[in-house]
Each structure stands twice: as structure tokens, then as C-alpha cells.
């Protein structure tokens, strides 16, 4: 039965989606190899942990984005929602709320934005691109208006804990009075990402909602005729995407120890690129969380490695553009065989 189970695992990954992930993984490994040759500092425990940390925000966004993309939709609002969630948390903390409930409400804010996206898409029948484009502007405008465009600072040590804390961190006090980091620890954001990715994959592959998400993206009319509640499924996916955007907002703002209302611009493109590099199809019906994580790390490693190698910011853009296309192409050729 284990053969059956294995196959069952792969069944939603059509035209050899195991290959899909394999080719993305190869791209990732090639990148790591190339950068290790170019810069000795790249291939170190420290830097590995940094990449984990840096990728966690895009990674969290990519989980929700993947779900939305599998339904055949898209969520352009995640970058703005991330900022709005952060702003809400920041204002609540300024109003005296402790960090945990404030952050929880920040995530809820993201979820509410996503829920509204879902409502507009299903009940008003607006295409996802337009609906979430609207939300992108609205959430950004509200975030800026609420703060007068100024960062919210001095939120206290505890606010930075989520983004900057780490498990098994070892620090030593130096003679000069400044601390020295022996082992930076596994960053909490990376742990959070792992948990959310596993949970997301579980929902998509093992739960009814996941099955319905695939069916809606594969053939919406067929799903409807089969008795799938298409509207509820879509609303669920957009709410998840919004909540994850809220969560990534918490991580990001906590890393900055400041709430920045204009943070997160164009993050949606990174999240979409991660999903697509990882094999999700913008036509719907195809995608996986694990693939998207590989996609997110391809982008993260690329940014980090190019910085480490001291590449000009402009050439970096060109290279990232080429790699995004190249990664998807590599996948294409593998699939065609």
C-alpha cells in the first residue's frame, strides 16, 4: 500500500509535477554552488541562517499565494495588506495593548482584508486581478492615512522578539562592552515558516478544502456542478492569503522593530514568482506548497548571493529576471520529455 500512498501524494502534481519540483530544486542547488564558488562567506552556517530569515517573509506570502493561484486566482494585495496589518498592530500597541494580542489582531486584519477580497471576487464577481488590485490601493492608502505616512517607532523590545529572536542562540559579552554572536540561532521566522508551510501542505493535500481548491481551479463549473461550494472555497483561499500576509507583516515589522506603512511594495511579484517557479500554474489547478518554498528560496538565495558577491544593484535586477525565466524554462523542457 505504500506505493499507492506515494502515488496518492503525487496525484495532484500532474504531468510529472515531481519533476517540476525536481527541476526547481536543481536550479536552487546550482545557484548555491555558483555563489559558494564566488564568495567564501556565502556558504557558511551564519549566512545560511540569514537566508532563512530573509526568505521567511516571501515564503509566508508564497504559501497563501499558492493557494490562491491554485484556485485560478491571484492576490496582488499582499504587500499592502502586510503593511496595513503592521500598522494596526503598531497603533494598538501605542494604544496600550500588549504585543501578543496586538499581533494577533494584526493577523486578523490581514485575514479580514483577504476575506473582503474573497467577497468582492465571489459576490460581486470581479476578476481576482482587479479586486486585489483595488485592495492593494485601498489597504496601502489606509495604512498611510492612519499613520500620516510616518513610521511607528519605539514599540519596545518585545515587538522585535518575533523577527529577531532565535532558537539556540549563543551570545557572549565582549571586553569592549558590545556583545559578540557565537551562534546566531535558528531564527523564529524560519521556524514559523516551516510550521506554516507544513500546515499549508497538509491542508492542500490531505483535507477537503485543499481538494476543493484544486477542483475550483481546475474547472470551476465542474466543481460547482459537483456540489462544491465554489464561493466559500475561494473566500477561504483569499482569507488564508490575507492572514498569511498579516503574519508576514508581523515578522517583517518585528524585524525592523518599527512599523513602516510603506513597506512591502511589489512583494506580491516576488510571492507570485516563487509560486510559479515552484510549478504553480496561473491557469489554476496546479501547484504545491513545497514547490513554492523552493521557489521562494531561489529568489532569496539569489538576492543574498548577489549582494554577497557585490554585484551592482542594476545587474542584480537583470540577473534575477533571467533566472526567473530560466527556472521556469528548465522546468518546461523537463516536462516536455
Amino acid at each position, binding site marked *: 500500500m505504500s506505493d499507492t500512498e506515494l502515488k496518492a501524494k503525487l496525484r495532484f502534481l500532474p504531468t510529472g509535477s515531481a519533476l517540476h519540483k525536481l527541476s526547481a530544486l536543481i536550479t536552487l542547488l546550482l545557484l548555491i554552488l555558483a555563489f559558494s564558488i564566488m564568495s567564501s562567506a556565502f556558504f557558511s552556517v551564519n549566512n545560511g541562517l540569514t537566508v532563512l530569515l530573509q526568505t521567511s517573509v516571501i515564503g509566508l506570502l508564497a504559501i497563501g499565494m499558492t493557494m490562491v493561484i491554485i484556485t485560478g486566482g491571484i492576490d496582488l494585495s499582499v504587500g499592502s495588506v502586510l503593511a496595513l496589518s503592521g500598522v494596526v498592530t503598531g497603533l494598538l500597541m501605542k494604544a496600550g495593548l500588549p504585543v501578543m494580542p496586538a499581533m494577533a489582531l494584526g493577523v486578523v486584519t490581514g485575514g479580514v482584508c483577504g476575506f473582503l477580497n474573497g467577497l468582492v471576487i465571489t459576490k460581486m464577481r470581479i476578476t481576482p486581478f482587479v479586486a486585489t488590485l483595488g485592495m492593494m490601493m485601498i489597504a496601502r492608502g489606509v495604512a498611510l492615512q492612519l499613520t500620516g505616512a510616518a513610521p511607528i517607532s519605539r514599540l519596545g523590545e518585545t515587538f522585535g522578539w518575533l523577527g529577531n529572536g532565535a532558537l539556540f542562540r549563543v551570545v557572549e559579552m565582549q571586553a569592549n562592552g558590545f556583545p559578540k554572536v557565537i551562534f546566531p540561532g535558528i531564527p523564529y521566522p524560519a521556524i514559523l515558516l516551516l510550521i506554516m508551510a507544513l500546515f499549508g501542505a497538509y491542508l492542500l493535500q490531505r483535507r477537503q478544502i485543499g481538494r476543493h481548491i484544486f477542483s475550483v481551479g481546475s474547472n470551476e463549473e465542474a466543481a460547482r*456542478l459537483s456540489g462544491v461550494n465554489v464561493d466559500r472555497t475561494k473566500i477561504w483561499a483569499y482569507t488564508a492569503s490575507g492572514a498569511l500576509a498579516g503574519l508576514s507583516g508581523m515578522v517583517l515589522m518585528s524585524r525592523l522593530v518599527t512599523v513602516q506603512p510603506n513597506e512591502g511594495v511589489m512583494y506580491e511579484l516576488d510571492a507570485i514568482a516563487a509560486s510559479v517557479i515552484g510549478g504553480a500554474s496561473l491557469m489554476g*489547478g496546479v501547484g504545491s506548497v513545497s514547490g513554492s518554498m523552493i521557489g521562494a528560496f531561489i529568489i532569496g538565495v539569489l538576492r543574498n548571493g548577489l549582494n554577497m558577491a557585490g554585484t551592482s544593484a542594476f545587474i542584480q535586477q537583470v540577473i534575477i529576471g533571467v533566472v526567473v525565466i530560466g527556472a521556469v524554462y528548465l522546468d518546461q523542457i523537463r516536462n516536455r520529455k
Partner: protein
Amino acid sequence: MFDTAPTHAPLVQMCDIHKNFGGVVAVDDVSVDLYPGEVVGVLGHNGAGKSCLMRMLSGAMSLSSGEILVNGEKADLKTPQDAKTFGIETIYQTLALADHLDAAANLFLGRELKTRFGNLDETRMHAEAKAALVQLNPNFKNLKDPVSRLSGGQRQVIAIARAIYFQAKVLIMDEPTAALGPSETAMVADLTLRLKKDGIGIFLISHDMHDVFDLCDRVMVMNKGRNVGTFKIEDVNKDDILSLIIKGTLPDDWTPRGETS
């Protein structure tokens, strides 16, 4: 398991059903009923409105006006889900399969089997699906392929299996054998008779006169959206039906064949 006497209260009554798309009248005040254990053929030329009429009973299309009664009570069939709770299952002309999912996932779509932890029970769904499909096509292999890779007939078999699996009370079959080979067609005919024996009421849309005469108890003929006649199958012959389908009227000299013969 159901009341098998076709003389009882009708399972389904569709009364004065009307459907228009803007100016186009697709279904024009059609009434028809269906009793348990009965097969009613729905015939008509292309574009006569057969699929539209049936889609309204499936909850897949809204009524412009008219009323549907199930077991004598008014049923408001707003979604396919509503229809399914009344035990109305449909094999759509378009099949309605999710291309990226495999046969089992399609068969159980919307009604997935779960383990006691609420997870999808893939093992059981596969086993059940296999059993159901093999009944209709003994050498159905590509059970784990996404259905987009299956041939037209294989897809049709999945659509049929899905409709009968859930113990329908009313089954709507919209040209179920159009894409099927001869052995598959024969199996669907067998199946129809078996379901009928179980007391299920069946609406069968078909262009195949042989199927119609072999399987139906009554036929209802539509022409340009209107019901131009409902007959016991004994009362009509092929030419009567062709005349109704094509011209919308019976031959001038018609009298119920059942009585004359």
C-alpha cells in the same frame, strides 16, 4: 428500497417551466413529471431546450418562471448541492469533470470520504472508485491519471459512475452514451434498467432511437423550447417521434399505437 409502483405520487413534477436568455426563449412553459422506477425520454432537435430544462432540475440553472415539486413538495433548487440533497443526480452533457484531478477525486468531488480525523480517505475513495468504474468498463486502467489525459469515452464513464454512486432517487442523463463505444453503451443500458428496477426515476436525453425504445417507459418531445407531446412508449413508433422532433407535430393519421395494435 423505494416505492416501485409507478402509479403512486410523482417523484418529480416540473410545472410550466420557462427559461429565456434575454430575448432567446430556450424553454417555453414546459411541464413534465417522473414517477419512481420510470424512465422518461427527453427528445428533441439540437437546440430544442432539453439540456436547459434538465439543468434547471439539477440546480445548475435558475428558472425564469415555473415550479418544481419533488415528492409533491415545492423544491427550491438554487444550487446543484440543493438538488443533490433531494437525491437528484445528473450526468451532464459536458461531463463536468475537473481535468487536473484523477478519477477517484472527481467521483467523490464535493462528497469526499474522510478518516475519523477529518483527513481525506484516499485509500477508501480509490477502492470505491475502482469498484464503481470497473462495473462500467472492466479494463479501466488509468485510474490515477488526471482525467485530462483520458479519452472521451473514459471520461464519460467517470461522469456516469459519479452520478450512480450516490444512490440517486432521480437520475438525469444528458446524452450519456454519445461518446461511448458499443460495449460501454450496452453496459449503460443494463445499468439503466437495473436502476429503474431499484425504483429510481430517470430522465434520459438521447438522440439514439434504439436506446429510447429499449429503455424508456414514456417519452417527452421538445421542439423549439415547447413540449410538443408526452407519450407512453407503446403509443408511438419511430416515425411518430421523428415527426414530432422535426416538425413539432404528429403525423396526421396518428392514433395511439398501443390501442390500435
